[in-house]
């Protein structure tokens, strides 16, 4: 698989990262180097090997259904560029 300039632009757009037109070829080639490395990994025969998900033998940590957090509207909104009446205020997004 090869990443062209348009695909690089699409990926950047999906990630909401602004990339200038002149930087796209470099980005595309960087993607291709990464994918090339992945392809190299794909050559390893892992038939019958369980995927390793953690380096330590841990079980997913669970918590009981108890309310222990919240009630800090002011703190939650404190980094917002704009907040009104307890809401985050963002540029209008309507379907």
């Amino acid at each position, binding site marked *: 698989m090869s990443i062209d300039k348009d695909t690089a632009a699409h990926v950047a757009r999906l990630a909401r990262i602004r990339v200038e037109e002149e930087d796209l070829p470099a980005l595309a080639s960087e993607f291709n180097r990464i994918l090339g490395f992945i392809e190299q990994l794909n050559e390893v025969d892992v038939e019958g090997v369980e995927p390793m*998900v953690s380096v330590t033998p841990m079980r997913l940590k669970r918590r009981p259904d108890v309310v222990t957090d*919240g*009630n800090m*509207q002011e703190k*939650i909104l404190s980094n917002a560029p704009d907040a009104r009446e307890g809401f985050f*205020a*963002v540029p209008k997004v309507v379907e």
Partner: protein
Amino acid sequence: MLDLTFDAPKPKVISGATGDWELVIGMEVHAQVASKAKLFSGASTEFGAEPNSNVSFVDAAMPGMLPVINEFCVEQAVRTGLGLKAQINLVSAFDRKNYFYPDLPQGYQISQLYHPIVGEGEVLVEMGPGLARRVRIERIHIEQDAGKSIHDMDPHMSFVDLNRTGVALMEIVSRPDIRGPEEAAAYIAKLRQIMRYLGTCDGNMQNGNLRADVNVSVCRPGDYEKYLETGDFGHLGTRCEIKNMNSMRFIQAAIEYEARRQIAILEDGGTVDQETRLFDPDKGETRSMRSKEEAHDYRYFPCPDLLPLEIEQEWVDAIRDSLPELPDEKKARFITEFGLSDYDASVLTADVEAARFFEKVAEGRDGKMAANWVINELFGRLKKDGLEIGESPIGAERLGAIIELISRGDISGKIAKQVFEIAYTTGREPAEIVETEGLKQVTDTGAIEAAVDEVIAANPAQVEKARENPKLVGWFVGQVMKATGGKANPKAVNETVRARLGL
């Protein structure tokens, strides 16, 4: 014994200009888990709180925060799966579904794409006596809900409330086995009923705790059967997904509109584009959500913050052992144990609270009579006052006491309705009402004979007529009942009138 022999209902057919079309519908139902805290944070799930007050730093996606799973939510998903006779996967895993939207601060939703916790199951959707659709469930997975955007508070800004962000949802995905708008509504109603029995989701559609994405396509008669035989979706039409509906009425209207829209395109020689659409209830139309198209590239990948979710068979078995009697079984039991009709049993088991209420009324009493009183008198009265069964001013014990008074012959059915009304409005004991108000039925033969004689003596002309036309006995019975304030035993009055008139 449970009678599970049903015929499949006929699919909905729409006649077009070029022939008949059939509908094929699959649904993704999002059910909010009835938990106190969120799926991955300790913030409350309470509805209607101040905006952004039920939000933790995890929900707000502050840097460095890590999700820790709420075990209760996992249990509810397993419980729901068992209630839908589904396979439970002892190992499941979480994935990130990436997209940008202001009410999703993480920039991704934690979901289960590749390894859902629940696999294939089924739901029996009854469409009438002996008529039911078996809808196959493909999977149920656990995921986070997003926040809420409000667009009408300001002309230039959207307001975002993250209270719902991170609340646990169960997404129940069906196979395309639903064949019409009514079946779609009945399917949701059945899921809602089962989950309310299980206690895993409160089913409150108005609050958005149960909502559905509906996939609609149309095909020619015979095509669907080919799909069933081969499993090849190529036999079906291109589908459109109508997003996020939380009203049974709108779901039906949207399906109806969407099917006709697709048929019009196809009959015009066009092709249906696979896309996401929104239903506009004011216009009664669906319209394309163009902005969603690019967002469809979700770039799923395993969530690096969470280990796979491993559960133990013993735990699943313990949950299975704790399952309550489910609607289908309860209904069958009501029919066999209490001798109820199919219809009455359906009405009484529609809601788990109503079913419990009925069982208390019926316990040790006449089941059919109890069903009549609960359905006709109580439900009718509650409906008049706009009350739910849980808010009934008269409890099961008191309603049962009224039925006992009738069974013992202390009051007639007609007087019982008076007693019911008094007990309902005042909360007084039925036996005390009968005593205090002097409503006890007169079974004393002497008193009845005296009343009959009085009516006969006062109406010689009617007596003449009655001897020729015995149907007039009813008129005399009516007069006597009136004279005794309805308290005379109607059967005794009838017999005495007949005897006195020599009929």
